[in-house]
Structure formats: structure tokens, C-alpha cells
């Protein structure tokens, strides 16, 4: 049976197996019908022209892993930012792991989507926010239809969360192939501030497909820093659908570090619903082998006097392929918009490919919008210059690549995270260099 049919056929059994309230049931049913109509995306869709899910979808996925799998902290410690204190919301094969987690209800909620969806005390928040900004497209609808678990984070007015929150999804692969669909909801009220790190990690060589949806609501003056670490193994694919709703004076930044995985698709969508908003989208992609990373970004400037800053850097080795599809829409009302988009790529091997496509749709006349896109190789003169000073070619290349990625790294606000990412990059480049950019 094809995956689509398998998913549709299991829906009733799935809903019977979980706690539900009527409102959510209605949202789910509608989403399922939507998915049934749309199906999985194909390359015929403009937005999916360069990314094909065909080979992944052929796997016989187990879609609701129902065994409780446990893992030892020592075995997975390295996937955490463990040298600082953090809140943790951890899932194993889509199920909450209380053992690995560290949640809170003390002045804020850092907990589970399953309880938020089923308990009455969260009803108001769910009614106001759940599925309100998510696009009703094929993969998001699929996630909504099977919504059950994920992180639920609610930060009340004026609360500055004292430590970062880590959301980690492990897959153990006790089944041949696993599909999981986490659903996160993050509501940050007026003047509140939170830092979140999200990671998906497969612990198996078996195929994994993660179709995650995250909705983030940032109220007036709120500040959200969100970091995505994508450094999964070669058989794990990720479709990340993130939707961000920003109100007046809020600042939201999303950093996406894509260092590994089979196929990684990032659908990152910002909607500016107020004035003096700043949206920051940054990414570093360093891949090799046959890996594929596709960044599909949207910034929708709806109101006047807002800014957006995009800076994506990509380094592609061997036969890896990359896509950058960055869309900026400026509504007629959104005068005085400042929208910047930068996408720079280095192809290390002549077999690597990058497809870059900036799309600007500007309907206002008093705006500053710029985009710059480059595709190149490492600068031979710079390499000779560095070698002349005694730096061997391998280290010289690494130094150039570090420098290239540095404009993105330097805006990471959690020092331990920055250090960790530096280490991952050094390991990927196969060098141990004694500098810290």
C-alpha cells in the first residue's frame, strides 16, 4: 500500500487511540480531507521543482510507533547542549520521555502538546492559537490530521525565560522505517523573551521521515531566538514546516544549521502583523555525499515600517544538492519596508549543485528591498596567500569556509551553542584549527 493510502486507512484507528476533544477532532478531520485531496507534493509543483520525495515515500513506514522505547542518557548526551542548564522536552519515536525531559509549569508552561490538547486549562490558548497561522498545504495538513504530540510552550507577559529550551526528537528505528509527525506550539506573550533549540536525531541506520510543524506566536515587544540543528544521519529525512506570527515591535530570529541528513526541506514562513517588526532568517548549510537541503523561505510584509534580514550560506561538496527559494512579499500597505536577502554558495566539487531562486513580490512603492545571490568556488588567490604564510591547504580551505559561514555564526546568542556548532563544522571539514571566529 502506498504511504498516502496507508495514512488515510489508519486515521480512524489513530483517533480512537488517543484523548480528544471535539474542536480538535473537527480540525483534524478537515485537515485529513485536505491531505486526501492534495496528496504528497510532487516535482510538478513549482515550490517542489528541485526536491523530490519519491524515493523516501517508497519506504514501508511504521506510522504510529506504539512501543515504548527507552534510551540511556549517556548514549545520547552528545546531542544535547549539556554544558549549560536548560529546559528539555524530549521525545522518543514520537512519545514523550519524562526521563530525558526537564519541563516546567512554574510561571510559564514548557510541556506537552498532548496535554495542551486534552486538558481544559489550556483550552483558551489552544482555541486562540492552534493551527491559526499554519498554512493549509499538503504536508502541514497531514501533520494536523495526525496531531498528537510535540512541545507546548507558553511564556506569559513580561517573562524572560532564564535558560534556553531544547526540543529534541529521537528516533530509535526498532521498526524498519519510522515516520513521525511532531507538532509544536509556542506562544510568547507581550514583552516576553525565550530562546529555543530544536533538534531531530535518528539513532538508527533505518529510514526515518519526520514531518514536523511548529507554530510560533510572538506578541508585542516579544523576543524569540530559535535555533534549528539539522545534523542527522544519512537515512533520516526531515520536512520542517515553521510558521511565525509577529506583532508590533517583536523580534524573531531563526537560525537553521543544516549539516546532515538525507533530504532536508525547510519551509520557513514569517507573517508580519504589526509595525516595527524585525524578522531574522539565517542559515548555514554544509553537506556532502548525496545529501540534499532545500530552504524555502517566505517573509510576508503586511504592515508598514518593518524589516527582514535573510542571510543563507551554503557549502556543497561531492554530489550534494542545495536549493534556496526565498520569497519576499511586500503588501501595498507595507510602506517603508526594509527587506534584505543574501544567499551565498560555494561549490567545492564540480558534481555538486545549487538551485537558487530569489522571488520578490513588491506592491508598495516606498521600500528598500535588496537581494544578492552568489555561487562560486574557493578563491585560489586567497588560498595561495594563506599557504604562503605557512597554513597548509586543508587548513586554509577550512579557514576560508569558516570565514564564509561566520556572518551567520556570530549572531548566535548562546555561547555554548556557538561553540558546539563550531565543533561540528570543524569535524565536517576534517580539521582541528586553533582559532575561534
Amino acid at each position, binding site marked *: 500500500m502506498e504511504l498516502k493510502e496507508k495514512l488515510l486507512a489508519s486515521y480512524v484507528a489513530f483517533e480512537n487511540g488517543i484523548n480528544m476533544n471535539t474542536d480538535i477532532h473537527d480540525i483534524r478531520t478537515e485537515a485529513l480531507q485536505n491531505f486526501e485531496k492534495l496528496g504528497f507534493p510532487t516535482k510538478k509543483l513549482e515550490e517542489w521543482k528541485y526536491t523530490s520525495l519519491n524515493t523516501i515515500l517508497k519506504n514501508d513506514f511504521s506510522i504510529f510507533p506504539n512501543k515504548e522505547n527507552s534510551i540511556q542518557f549517556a548514549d545520547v548526551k552528545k546531542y544535547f547542549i549539556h554544558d549549560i542548564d536548560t529546559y528539555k522536552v524530549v521525545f522518543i519515536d514520537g512519545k514523550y520521555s519524562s526521563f530525558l525531559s526537564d519541563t516546567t509549569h512554574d510561571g510559564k508552561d514548557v510541556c506537552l502538546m498532548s496535554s495542551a490538547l486534552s486538558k481544559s486549562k489550556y483550552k483558551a490558548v489552544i482555541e486562540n492559537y492552534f493551527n491559526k497561522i499554519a498554512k493549509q498545504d499538503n504536508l502541514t495538513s497531514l501533520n494536523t490530521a495526525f496531531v498528537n504530540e510535540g512541545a507546548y510552550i507558553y511564556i506569559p507577559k513580561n517573562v524572560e525565560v532564564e535558560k534556553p529550551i531544547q526540543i529534541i526528537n529521537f528516533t530509535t528505528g526498532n521498526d524498519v522505517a519510522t515516520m513521525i509527525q511532531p507538532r509544536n506550539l509556542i506562544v510568547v506573550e507581550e514583552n516576553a523573551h525565550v530562546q529555543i533549540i530544536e533538534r531531530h536525531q535518528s539513532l538508527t541506520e533505518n529510514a526515518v521521515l519526520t514531518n514536523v510543524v511548529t507554530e510560533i506566536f510572538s506578541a508585542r515587544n516579544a523576543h524569540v531566538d530559535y535555533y534549528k540543528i539539522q545534523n542527522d544521519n544519512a537515512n533520516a529525512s526531515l520536512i520542517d514546516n515553521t510558521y511565525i506570527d509577529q506583532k508590533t515591535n517583536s523580534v524573531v530570529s531563526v537560525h537553521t544549521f543544516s549539516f546532515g541528513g538525507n533530504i532536508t526541506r525547510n519551509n520557513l514562513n514569517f507573517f508580519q502583523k504589526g509595525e516595527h517588526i524585525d524578522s531574522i532568517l539565517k542559515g548555514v548549510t554544509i553537506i556532502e555525499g548525496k545529501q540534499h537541503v532545500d530552504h524555502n523561505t517566505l517573509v510576508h510584509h503586511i504592515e508598514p515600517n518593518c524589516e527582514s534580514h535573510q542571510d543563507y550560506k551554503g557549502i556543497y561538496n561531492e554530489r550534494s544538492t542545495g536549493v534556496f527559494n526565498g520569497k519576499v512579499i511586500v503588501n501595498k500597505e507595507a510602506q517603508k519596508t526594509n527587506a534584505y536577502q543574501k544567499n551565498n554558495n560555494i561549490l567545492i566539487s564540480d558534481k555538486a549543485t545549487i538551485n537558487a531562486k530569489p522571488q520578490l513580490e513588491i506592491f508598495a512603492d516606498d521600500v528598500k528591498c535588496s537581494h544578492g545571490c552568489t555561487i562560486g568556488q574557493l578563491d585560489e588567490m586567497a588560498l595561495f596567500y*594563506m599557504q604562503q604564510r*605557512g*597554513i597548509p591547504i586543508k587548513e586554509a580551505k577550512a579557514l576560508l569556509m569558516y570565514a*564564509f559561514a561566520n556572518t551567520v555564526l556570530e549572531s548566535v546568542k548562546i555561547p555554548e551553542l556557538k561553540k558546539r556548532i563550531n565543533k561540528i563544522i570543524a569535524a565536517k571539514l576534517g580539521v582541528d584549527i*586553533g582559532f575561534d571566529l
Partner: protein
Amino acid sequence: MLKINNLYAVIDDKSILKGLNLDVKAGEVHAIMGPNGAGKSTLANIIAGKEEYEVTQGDIELNGEDISELSPDERAHNGVFLSFQYPVEIPGVSVTNFIKTAINENRKAKGLEDMPAKDMLKLLREKSELLEIDRKFLSRSLNEGFSGGEKKRNEIFQMAMLDPKLAILDETDSGLDIDALRIVANGVNKLKSKDNAVIVITHYQRLLEYIVPDFVHVLFDGRIVKTGDASLALELEEKGYDWIKQELV
């Protein structure tokens, strides 16, 4: 120190050096002058090991060892330093981080540990004072947005940090105003010793008023066609190169 024997080199099938000989001993300063296109910068790049050039005949010896098969970084580890005519901009790497990396890679090649941070700081302070370089300058991205003079001064600063055996200054005077020229020349003179050697490549006599050469060579059509003392540079300044071309005919 440096001995070049009957060197022939080509790039894209075009002959650039055609039987060049040069003998530079420790403690000496050599100037290489000559008209545009004579092969001066090519010679500098070939000594430093730039790979586009193919040496078809002859060899380059440094302290008795043939270095013509070594990579540019290996030559650097053996004490060769080239001050570039056009230093390359490297955005995202600060002057300090770059020079620290270079020093530690040179030490690594010699089997030494990284230089202790305290010593590194002391060295940075000492050498930046020598070249009259502001501390803020050191945290800027390497050569990015530097003026012509700042780039050249930064080259000599790196030379001071690395303390090479053989320094080749390729058109270091171009783009320098008179004050910067004085600072750069002063730096080079302070670094000079009986154990190292300097090759100054220049169009003009101006720099040689500050860095006084023991020998002046005229490079023309891929060969050294005339050698003299410092007075030859003055003569060239006055009379140009045509009389040398005449002599050759």
C-alpha cells in the same frame, strides 16, 4: 641562502623566465628592478611556489636544499616570506586570528606546541608598535577595506611576526605615501640581520633610499642582464631602461 640556477619557467605555454641566475647570501639586501613585464613578480611567485607556473629547467635552492618541489606552505615553513603586491582580502578572519593561525601552523610543522597566549600577545604588541599599527586595526577582517598603505603595512607586520629567513618584497612601495613608506622601510631595516636576507622588487629607486641594497639587478626578458651596487638604481632612475636594452643588442 637562496641560489637560483639557470631557471626557466612558463605559464600557459608562454616563456616568462629564460635562464635566470641569482645568488643571495645571508645578511644581504638585493634589489630587482626592470621594466613592466620583465618577469619580476613572476620570479617572486615562483620562489614562493605558486602552482600556475611551471618550472621547465633549472632549480631553486634554499640553504643548500632544492625547494622547487615543495608546496607554498612548506616553503613558508622553510623561511620564505612573500609580501604581496596585491594582498588578498579575507572577510571574516581578523588580522590577529590569521597571524596566530599562521604562526601556530609554522610551529606545528617544526614539531612545536602552539605559542603560549602570553607570548603571542607580547609579540603582537611589540610588532604592531614597530609598524605603528593601532590595536583596533588587528581585530579588523584581513585586508578587507584596507587602504593601499594599510595593506602593505600589514604585510610587513606579518613578516615581523613570522620572522622569515628570506623576505621578498614585491612592489611594497606602490600605493604608499611618504610617511607610510618610511614606517615600512624602518620596519624592514629593524628586522634585517646577518642571518636573514631581503629581496626588494621595485620599479622605482624611492624605496631603495630607505632600504639600501648591497646589489641591484636588472631583470629584462626573463633574465638578469645587469648587476651593480646601489648606484645602479640611481642611474636607472635617471636614464630609464632603454640604454640597457641598447647594450644588449
